[in-house]
């Protein structure tokens, strides 16, 4: 049926070899939009609709509750600790992997990907096993007044683990593509290793780095599974925003739950907008370093 309609159309009109028949084109675009609407736009609108069901004032009031405030602060704190650390680790790993040759490199690349392939729940349990009351290390830590699981350090560790690959994974392909020629040129001109890194490597990778950091940040704020396992769910103490959303929802406080969900979604929006704005503003530079 569809073929029968397409073939005569092709004979009648000359069409550029790179484009599709109009019908197919619109069908595909329509399908894509329909899927996006069902999977992305509609749920997103539903979140905000539910949050504002009883008006702005009510939604904002739910955010000013002490537990909600504590959850927001904890989430920002966790992101503020994990993102800079993972940015540093990510740069170090990417630099070592792309600019130097050494044995065991392939193995390290695999290890960097590990957090992507391990289920977050497993990651969380891993920390409970390591630092929980049933391990010698855990007992020693608690005895010395530094509990890890069911406390903030555990949440930071779990988030660190989950978000580890984001920066490195973003940098490695680009740095491989850029090659080592510029660094080698700098070295022949007598620059020290540090200077090469600061004046040649870092300026070349900063956009990919920023992108990696934004992604890492979004995940650090949104991580649920691993954090749920190590959190202990103490209200106002070890409850991050995603955990708080579930709690509110379970307590029939759906406005509070969806308002907080909306805040998380808005953070993601800000992240994406920031990235798009930067890409648009610095398009020429991006073209100059030609990646992304």
């Amino acid at each position, binding site marked *: 049926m569809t073929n029968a309609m397409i073939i005569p159309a092709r004979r009648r009109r000359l069409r550029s070899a790179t484009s599709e028949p109009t019908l197919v084109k619109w069908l595909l675009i329509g399908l894509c939009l329909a899927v996006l609407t069902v999977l992305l736009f509609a749920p997103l609108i539903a979140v905000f609709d539910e949050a504002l069901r009883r008006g702005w004032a009510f939604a904002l009031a739910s955010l000013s509750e*002490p537990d909600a405030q504590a959850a927001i*602060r904890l989430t*920002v*704190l966790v*992101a*503020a600790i994990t993102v800079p650390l993972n940015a540093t680790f990510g740069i170090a790993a990417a630099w070592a992997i792309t600019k130097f040759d050494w044995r065991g490199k392939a193995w390290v690349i695999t290890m960097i990907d590990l957090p992507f392939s391990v289920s977050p729940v497993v990651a969380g349990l891993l920390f*409970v096993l390591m*630092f*929980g*009351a*049933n391990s010698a290390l*855990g007992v020693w830590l*608690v005895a010395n007044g530094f*509990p890890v*699981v*069911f406390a903030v350090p555990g949440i930071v560790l779990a988030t660190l683990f989950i978000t580890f690959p984001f920066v490195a994974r973003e940098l490695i392909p680009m740095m491989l593509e850029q090659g080592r020629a510029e660094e080698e040129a700098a070295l022949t001109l007598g620059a020290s290793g540090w200077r090469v890194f600061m004046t040649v490597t870092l*300026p070349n990778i*900063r956009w990919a780095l*920023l992108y990696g950091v934004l992604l890492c940040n979004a995940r650090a704020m949104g991580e649920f599974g691993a954090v749920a396992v190590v959190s*202990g*769910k*103490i*209200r*106002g*103490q070890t409850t991050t925003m995603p955990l708080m959303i579930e*709690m509110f*929802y*379970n*307590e*029939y406080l*759906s406005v509070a739950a969806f308002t907080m969900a909306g805040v998380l979604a808005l953070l993601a929006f800000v992240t994406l907008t920031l990235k798009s704005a930067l890409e648009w503003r*610095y398009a020429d*530079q991006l073209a100059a370093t030609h990646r992304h």
Partner: protein
Amino acid sequence: MSLYQTLAARLKRLTLVPAPVYAEQPSRRLRFWPMMATGALAIGVTLAPAPQAQAQGLTLLNVSYDPTRELYREYNAWFADWWEAQGNPRPTIQTSHGGSGAQARAVIDGLAAHVVTLALAGDIDAIATRTDLIAEDWQSRLPQNASPYTSTIVFLVREGNPQNIQDWDDLVRDGVEVITPNPKTSGGARWNYLAAWAYAEANGLDPQEFVGQIYRNVPVLDTAARGSTTTFVQRGLGDVLLAWENEAYLALAELGEDQFDIVVPSVSVLAEPPVALVPGNVTDDNLHALATAYLEQLYSPEAQAMALRHYYRAWDTSAADPEDVARFPEVNRLTIQHFGGWAEAQPLHFGDGGIFDQIYQE
């Protein structure tokens, strides 16, 4: 005055000087780092006003199960006032809620609970046997089997009871969808299971077969009671929810009495959600006094009235609203002793490879 003028003049000059059409590369390059710095500053500002809400008083952690959220929110506020009125510094009381079994597991793994208020004695027994935190005889240390309030299992059905569900045998009918959480992780679910078991026994049916048929009608097994309630009430799944009586009444109160009906089956259970001190985590004498008082005051007339208001069946009705007391219908309630006590029932039914595992593998 002059400062203002200089500023104004500068501003004017700034606007008058035409911007270079092609900005030089280096000047643009520099902007990347100020931008990052601004980002870091923004994070710093967000974190800075964090008021360190450190109360001078002690901090008590109550690790509880799912449906007690509303009860303990009220009780904690009342108890903090009461403790302060006794001439003590005001305490900070923290709570953690989840599936009863999962919460016990967390305490075993090191969640530093000072008191546990769980759904069933079996979960506190698990802490007592697997760790040194709680003594084995914990249940004899407080009145009424250490259970300040009790509950039972009822059915919550949709308004008008369209599937005409009256008793346990209606749950095995074809096409009836039953919502109940996973007995492995949820205390309430274990009571649901045992009540169904008791019904089969009383009516000359094969209990394992009967309970198995019920679970074949369960489309989703949530991990905790509250999860099941939301599945049934907010997501609209299933025809009947096997629920704690207090959860069922709470759902009615929160979401409207015109949406659901409560059905009381012919046989149910006397669910005793017990409370216990966790001496292993209470190292300080003052904290010990606070935690002990916290549990003992659960038996005070005020707290008992509170429990009744939150749809628990409490013992002392002297301070309660008569309406809260009159609400509960008479139910034939079997105790855990009918099943040989938790020490026997837990491994037999819910242990690894126990009857529930056998049923669920079919």
